[in-house]
C-alpha cells in the first residue's frame, strides 16, 4: 500500500524533531511511507478564520500532493479532521474522496493498527495525557466527558507499553487547552488563561510532562510554560512511543 506522511506546516517549521521521531518510529514498526515534496498547509487556519473560500487553492494543492496515495497519515488529529470534515466545498472528484476517506491521524493509526508491535519502553515520569479536541469530539477517538458512556482516552494504550510510567488524571481531563488556531491570536487573553488553567491543573498534581497527539495544543501550552518559566514539559506522544528520552 502506498502511504504518504503528511507533516503539518508548523511541525516542519517549529518541531522538526517531532517529525523525525515519527518517521523513526514508523520505520521501526515497518511502515513504508513517502514524504511527498511540496507540502504546504491544509488550509485550516484560513477556514477557521472565516475565509474558507480563500483556502480553496490550498485545498486543491493538498489534494494534488496527497490524492494519489492509498493512505495519508498526518501528524495531527486536527488537520486530518479538517480535511475529512471541511473539504466538502471543493468538487468531490475521485482523488478528493479517496483522500478524505483514507486520511488518518498518525497517532490514531499506530494506536489501533500497530498496538501489538509497539516495543516495551521505559519512561519513568509523571505524565498527564491531553487529547486534542478535534481528535476527541471531531474524530471521536475516545469518548468525551460530556457523553454518558464511560469516558475513554485513545492515548491510554500507551500505558500498556511502559511499565514505569506514572499516569496522572487531571481535574478537567478533556477541557480545551485554549489554542483553537487563530483564536489564540484574536482572543489571546482568554486563550492564555485557558492554557494557564490547564497547566496549573497539571502542575498541582505534580505532573512532569504533558503528552498529547496534537502538537498545536502543545505549541500554545509550551509558549506559556516558557514565558512563565513553569516546571513542566510537553511532548508529542509519538516522541514518547519512539523512546525519546525526556
Amino acid at each position: 500500500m502506498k502511504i504518504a506522511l503528511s507533516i503539518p506546516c508548523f511541525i516542519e517549521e517549529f518541531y522538526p524533531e517531532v517529525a523525525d521521531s515519527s518517521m523513526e518510529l514508523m520505520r521501526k514498526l515497518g511502515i513504508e511511507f513517502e514524504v511527498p515534496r511540496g507540502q504546504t498547509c491544509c488550509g485550516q487556519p484560513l477556514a477557521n478564520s472565516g475565509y474558507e473560500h480563500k483556502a480553496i487553492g490550498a485545498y486543491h494543492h493538498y489534494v494534488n500532493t496527497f490524492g494519489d496515495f492509498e493512505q495519508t497519515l498526518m501528524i495531527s488529529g486536527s488537520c486530518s479532521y479538517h480535511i475529512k470534515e471541511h473539504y466538502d466545498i471543493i468538487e468531490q472528484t475521485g482523488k478528493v474522496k479517496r483522500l478524505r476517506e483514507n486520511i488518518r491521524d498518525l497517532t490514531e493509526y499506530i494506536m489501533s493498527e500497530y498496538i501489538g508491535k509497539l516495543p516495551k519502553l521505559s519512561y519513568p515520569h509523571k505524565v498527564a495525557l491531553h487529547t486534542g479536541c478535534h481528535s476527541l469530539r471531531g474524530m471521536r477517538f475516545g469518548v468525551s466527558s460530556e457523553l454518558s458512556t464511560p469516558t475513554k482516552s485513545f492515548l491510554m494504550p500507551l500505558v500498556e507499553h511502559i511499565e514505569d510510567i506514572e499516569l496522572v488524571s487531571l481535574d478537567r481531563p478533556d477541557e480545551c487547552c485554549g489554542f483553537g488556531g487563530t483564536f489564540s491570536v484574536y482572543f489571546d487573553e482568554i486563550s492564555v488563561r485557558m492554557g494557564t488553567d490547564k497547566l496549573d491543573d497539571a502542575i498541582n498534581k505534580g505532573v512532569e510532562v504533558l503528552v498529547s497527539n496534537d502538537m498545536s495544543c502543545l505549541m500554545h501550552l509550551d509558549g506559556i510554560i516558557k514565558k512563565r518559566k513553569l516546571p513542566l514539559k510537553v511532548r508529542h506522544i509519538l516522541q514518547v512511543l519512539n523512546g525519546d528520552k525526556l
Partner: protein
Amino acid sequence: MAIDFKQKSASFVENKTRSAWHDTALWFVRNKRDIAVMGVENWEQLRLQASNIKTHCLSNLDKYLLEFEENALKNGAIVHWAKDADEHNKIVGEILNKHKVKKIVKSKSMLTEECELNPYLEKNGIEVIDTDLGERIIQLRNEPPSHIVLPAIHIKKEEVSELFHEKWNTERGNNDPQYLTYQARLSLRKDFLTSDAALTGVNFAVAETGEIVVCTNEGNADLGVSITPVQIHSMGLEKLIPKRSHLGVFTRMLARSATGQAITVYTSHFKKPKPEGEMHIIIVDNGRSERLKKEDFWTSLKCIRCGACMNTCPIYRRSGGHSYGYTIPGPIGAILTPNINLEKYSDLPFASTLCGSCSDVCPVKIDIHNQLYKWRQVIGKNNVLPKTKTIAMGLAGKILEKPGLFKFVFKMGRIALRILPDFIVYNRWNNWGKGRKMPEIKKKKLRNEF
C-alpha cells in the same frame, strides 16, 4: 456599534480572582449535570429522540401551530400572534390596559428580555416586578442577565447584600444566601399581593392538547399566575412539541442538563383559565420563521434553553455572559445573534476554539460548533471583517497554494524571528507573544533529509 467581545472578555479575565470564581461556579454546575445524566439509562438515545421530535415538529410547524391554537381556544385560552417584538409588547400592553393593570409580576422569560418588554411597559406606566430571585437581583441592579438559567451568576453575595441593604434596608454586611433569599421572599410576597396580572415564559407548548408547560424552581410562576386574575404566557413559536407524551422526554432532560436536578421543583401545566380569569397565549415569531429557512442554521431552533452549553464552554466561563452583549450568551447565543445582526455580532462566532463541548452536552443535539464554523464563513464572505484582515487572509491563501512561495515566506519569517529583538516580537501588536513565548526556530531543517 459592533460588540467588542475581545475587549470585554479581556477585561473580565483580567480580574483573575473573579473570573476564576466564575469559572469554578459554572464548572460545578457542569459537574452536577454530568452526575445527573450518568444516572439515566440511555441518555444518548434520549438526546436523539428529543432531537428527532424537534426536527419533526419544526418541519411541520405550520400544522402544529394551528393544531395548538385550535386546542388552546377550545380550552378557553385567548391566542395572539406576534410577528415581532414590537407587536408582542403592544399585545401585552393592550391586555393590561383593558384590565387597568398597574402592576405585573413576571416569572423568568428570556423571550421578554429579547423583546425588551420591561422598558416598554414601564414607559407606559406599568410597574413590572421580576419574581425569579436572580432576575429580581439584576432588575434591581438595572442590568441584563448574564446566563439564561442563572441570570445573576456573575454577582457575588456581598454585592447582593449591599444591593438589598440599599433597596430594602436589610442588615448591612449579612452575606448569608439564606438570609438574603428570605429578605427577597418577604419583599416579593408584597409584590404578589399587590399585582393584577402575571406573565410567564413557556418551556413547552403541546399541540395535541393546547396546554403550555412552565418549569421553575422557586414557585414564582405558579404563585403569580394563581394569585392574579389575568395570566399571560409569551412563547417563541419554536417551543411547540406535537404530543403530550413527548413531555416525558423533555422533562427528563431539561433540569438535568440545566442544573443537574432530576426535574425542576415545579413542572406546571397550564391548560384552562381559572374560573372568571383570563388566559392569554402570545405566539411570537421575531425572526424565527426566517431562521427556519436557513439550511445551515435552522436546527438552532431546537434549543430548549437549558444553558448547558454555557456551563461547559471554557470561553464563556472565563469571559462572563455580559461579554456577548446579548440576552442569550455563550455558544448558543453566538449562533443565534448573527441571525439578528451579522455586523453587530460578528465577533461572537469567533469567540470559540471549536472544541465541540457545547455540541456534546446539548440535550437536543444541536451541532453548535459546526454552526459557529459556518457563521464564520458567512461573515468572511460578506466582508463584515475588517478590510486589513480580508487582504491578509487572501494573501495567505495564495501563499498556501504555492509551495515555493510558502517556503520563502516561512524562511523570511524565520530570519525575522531570529534577528528581531524580543521587544519587537513581544510588542503590543503581537498577541501571541503577550502571554506566550514564540516557538523556537530550529536550525536543523527537516526537509533537507529528502
